[in-house]
C-alpha cells in the first residue's frame, strides 16, 4: 500500500524526548487528504494513488475542466493534487487519508520546493573554495578557469557556473516521525525539510528505510 500524504509546512520548533534530550522538529499540517483517483496496472500501465489536499470552498475558484474532473470522480474540488506511486491495495476513490497512516518512529521522505536564493555565484551555489581574501590576492570568489587553453579549448557541458539557486524540487530522506497529533492533523518530523513556511510538501514512506 502506498503510504503518502500531502501537507503544509508550518514551521520549526523543538520538543523534549522522554530522556530529556531536545529534538529539533518541523511541524507539518498534513492532510486530511482525499483519494481522487486510483491508477492500476491494467488500466494505466502503472499503479499509483492520486491524493487531493486543501478543499476549494468557493465554487467559482474551480476552473471548468477541473470542476468536470472532480465531478466525474465524485469528490470535492481540491487545491493540490499529487500522484504517489505504489500499489493501491484496498484504497478506493473518495477515501480519506490522514496523519494516522504514520506512527511515531516511522521513517519518511519529505519532498518540497527549496527556498529560492536568486542568482548566486559558485562559492555559495556549489561550495567552491574561492581564493584568499588578503595577502595581495586579487582572486576572491571567481570560478577560475572554465575551459583551459588550446586543449580542450572549450567549456565542458554541465560545467558548474553561477546561476539561479534554489526553488528546485528537493527530497530529504529518512527523517523520523517524532510525534503524530491526529486531533489537529499535525506531524512532527525530526530535522529540517525543504521550503519556506506554508509551502506544500509531500511526505512518503522512506524508500531506503531499513526493515
Amino acid at each position, binding site marked *: 500500500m502506498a503510504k503518502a500524504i500531502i501537507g503544509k509546512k508550518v514551521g520549526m520548533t523543538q520538543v*523534549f524526548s522522554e530522556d530529556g534530550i*531536545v529534538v529539533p522538529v518541523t*511541524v507539518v499540517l498534513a492532510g486530511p487528504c482525499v483519494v481522487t483517483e486510483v491508477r492500476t496496472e491494467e488500466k494505466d500501465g502503472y499503479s499509483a494513488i492520486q491524493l487531493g489536499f486543501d478543499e476549494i470552498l468557493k465554487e467559482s475558484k474551480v476552473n471548468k475542466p477541473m470542476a468536470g474532473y472532480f465531478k466525474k470522480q465524485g469528490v470535492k474540488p481540491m487545491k493540490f493534487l499529487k500522484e504517489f506511486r505504489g500499489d493501491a491495495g484496498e484504497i478506493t476513490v473518495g477515501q480519506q487519508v490522514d496523519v494516522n497512516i504514520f506512527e511515531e518512529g516511522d521513517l519518511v521522505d519529505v519532498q518540497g520546493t527549496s527556498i529560492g536564493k536568486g542568482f548566486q555565484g559558485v562559492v555559495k551555489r556549489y561550495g567552491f573554495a574561492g581564493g584568499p581574501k588578503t595577502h595581495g590576492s586579487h582572486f576572491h570568489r571567481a570560478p577560475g578557469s572554465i575551459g583551459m587553453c588550446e586543449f580542450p579549448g572549450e567549456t565542458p557541458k554541465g560545467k558548474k557556473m553561477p546561476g539561479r539557486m534554489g526553488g528546485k524540487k528537493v527530497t530529504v530522506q529518512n527523517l523520523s516521525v517524532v*510525534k503524530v497529533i491526529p486531533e489537529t492533523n*499535525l506531524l512532527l518530523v525530526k530535522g529540517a525539510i525543504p521550503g519556506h513556511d506554508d509551502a506544500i510538501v509531500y511526505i512518503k514512506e522512506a524508500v531506503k528505510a531499513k526493515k
Partner: protein
Amino acid sequence: MKNKLIESVEAAFSNKEIPEFRSGDTVKVHFRIKEGTKERVQIYEGLVIKVHNNSSNSTFTVRKMVGDIGVERIFPFYSPKIDKVELVRKGRVRQARLYYMRELRGKAARIKERRKGF
C-alpha cells in the same frame, strides 16, 4: 508572533511549574543525571546571568566559580531532567544579561540583595 499550531505543539511541553526568578538571583538547580544505569539528582548552585524566554524553548544560564574557573551551564526551563529549581537569594542588578560578571573576581563580583520595593 508565533504560529498558533506551533504554539499548540509547544504547549504540551511548557506546563511545568518553576519558581519565578530573574537575572542576578542565586538558584539551586536539581538536575537528574545518569551514571551508568543509576539515576541521581545533582544540585547545581550559582548565579543566574541570563534568562532567555521563548515558550517551550526557554532557557536560563547559571554561572558559578569552581576554584578560580568560571563554569556556566544553560538549562532548558522545561527539561524533564530538571526536578526543581530553588530560589536561594534575590539579587539587585541593573542589567538583564550579566555578562560583565565574567570579568569580575572576588569582592568585585558581589551582588547586593534585592529587597522589597526594588
